[in-house]
């Protein structure tokens, strides 16, 4: 098992290298002369040259790439022009807020889509099957930022059930002490019931908005995979041997159908990480997506590069976890590797 994980880690290295090259090129592709840009409009020629030397822009491109890698290895993502803060620190403090959204939405989406897919596959052509198809197609057509706004209108403005869409906690609660940065978990550990409820109620709407968007690929893949497995020989044998239907469906078919579903999770994560940026803007959520949008408006490039790189590395890591999970569920994969 350990060897399998190490092999997968090694296979991810070229991908990480590709990601670093792309973010490096992005940083160098800025319109105009970066040195003149960073120096500001009133800078003299000498000042621009000084900044060029300071930024390392007078060196050769491979050398610049080496410096870029060295800075990253030391956790140095550059400084934000507008706030003067270190981008790396800002990203680290904001990352848990974004992860809370993405992981919450993933769990919710899986909890709805997988049973829906199984139900639709075990009753093909039934009303459940048709409903599932229409609902998921409609769901994937809904941009998460729009769903979020509709949810705010209905549950905050009309019904008054949801709290104001203004960040992670309501105005009267203070952030729970803790290490993880996930307010829901920190509040539980600290035993602060009210903070916990406040954090959860702020989370519900953005999570639902994100989850609706990702239902379709998961439900469709579950249904297709279940249908294929249910039609296979070993299921017929299991049925013919007189095993109870629920045992055939859940223990024999479902476990095998899970494999393609887990592969789909990679795509779902891509949707979620992208969608989270938009949802963060709608709900004034202080995550790294909102940070990047603020920086975009101010034409502040270091935070955007840091954001793109963080998201990409996170995505590579998630795909790695999915790969390993695949190996755990399907022992054959581990043997081949």
């Amino acid at each position: 098992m350990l060897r399998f994980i190490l092999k997968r880690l090694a296979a991810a290295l070229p991908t990480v290298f590709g990601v670093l090259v792309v973010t490096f090129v992005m940083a160098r592709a800025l319109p105009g002369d970066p040195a003149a840009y960073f120096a500001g409009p009133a800078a003299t020629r000498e000042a621009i040259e000084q900044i060029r030397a300071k930024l390392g822009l007078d060196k050769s491109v491979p050398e610049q790439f080496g410096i870029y890698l060295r800075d990253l290895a030391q956790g140095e993502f550059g400084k934000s022009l507008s706030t003067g803060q270190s981008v790396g620190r800002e990203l680290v403090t904001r990352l848990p807020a974004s992860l809370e959204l993405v992981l919450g939405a993933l769990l919710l989406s899986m909890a709805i889509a997988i049973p829906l897919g199984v139900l639709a596959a075990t009753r093909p052509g039934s009303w459940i099957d048709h409903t599932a198809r229409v609902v998921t197609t409609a769901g994937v057509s809904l941009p998460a930022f729009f769903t979020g706004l509709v949810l705010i209108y209905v549950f905050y403005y009309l019904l008054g059930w949801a709290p104001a869409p203004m960040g992670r906690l309501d105005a009267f609660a203070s952030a729970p002490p803790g290490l993880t940065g996930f307010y829901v978990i920190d509040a539980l550990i600290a035993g602060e019931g009210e903070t916990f409820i406040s954090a959860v109620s702020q989370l519900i709407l953005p999570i639902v908005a994100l989850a609706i968007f990702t239902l379709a690929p998961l439900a469709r893949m579950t249904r297709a995979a279940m249908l294929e497995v249910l039609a296979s020989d070993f299921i017929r044998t299991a049925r013919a041997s007189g095993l109870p239907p629920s045992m055939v469906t859940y223990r024999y078919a479902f476990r095998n159908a899970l494999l393609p579903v887990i592969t789909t999770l990679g795509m779902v994560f891509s949707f979620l990480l992208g969608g989270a940026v938009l949802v963060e803007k709608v709900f004034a959520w202080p995550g790294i997506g909102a940070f990047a949008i603020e920086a975009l408006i101010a034409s502040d490039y270091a935070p955007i590069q840091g954001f793109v790189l963080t998201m990409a590395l996170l995505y590579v890591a998630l795909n790695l976890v999915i790969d390993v999970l695949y190996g755990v569920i399907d022992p054959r994969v581990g043997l081949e590797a």
Partner: protein
Amino acid sequence: MIALLRHMRYVLSENPVTLLAFALFAVLVLAAVLGPSLTPHDPLATDSTRALQPPSATYWFGTDQIGRDVFSRVLVATRLDLAIAMAAVVIAFVFGALGGAAAGYFGGWTERVISRLVDTVMAFPLFVLAMGIVASMGNTVGNIVLATGIINFPIYARVARAEANIRRNAGFIEAARLSGNGEARILLMHIVPNILPIMAVQMSLTMGYAILNAAGLSFIGLGVRPPTPEWGIMVAEGAAFIVSGEWWVALFPGLALMLAVFCFNLLGDGFRDILDPRKRT
């Protein structure tokens, strides 16, 4: 051809939803072509005396914060939104089909380089990559198109590679080679035309995603600039009024966006049923 038409009619009668999608598509195309000449009001004309009026007989979708007619703006925006998505899909299609087919047909270095390119794009969450590309290349509509094209490129390249790979040693390719066709000619005249139907299905499926992506980028303030009517920007502008109850400013452009994406997703499913019944899910 007649067999295909008969098969199409059969599929359409079996699946009325696809028929609905075709009808929606016709409406969208009409709106995109005729939209600017059908507007009841000037989509850019402001009038502070009629700001934020709810939908009425005069202003079907209400008016926005500076008194512009929301219906006219939604209608006019159709052309821009569809054009951006269409241009992006065409870029992805041309480069993806050619690159993917070359990779699948030639193998070797061509395949390695193109696969590495595809893997690198796929290593990013796609919307995030698009944000990064637009931010670093400049905040213009052209770059939105390019970024949306780049993130859709892997889908086409992968399909084209797999399909070309299956056909590289097929009988008709051997025959073409024996009759003295050059490699480039075989690729362009024999491989690419054969994989076009499968790519067409992808085109319709990715069109919906391209619309969402472009609208998402303008929602966060990239690309199209106000006051140009565009669905993503209009939703972003309307977002401020949701918490005070003026729902119509954001709802109607959002619905238009949703319908367009829904239409292309359904069309994609329908095309797949017509062209490739085995993949039906």
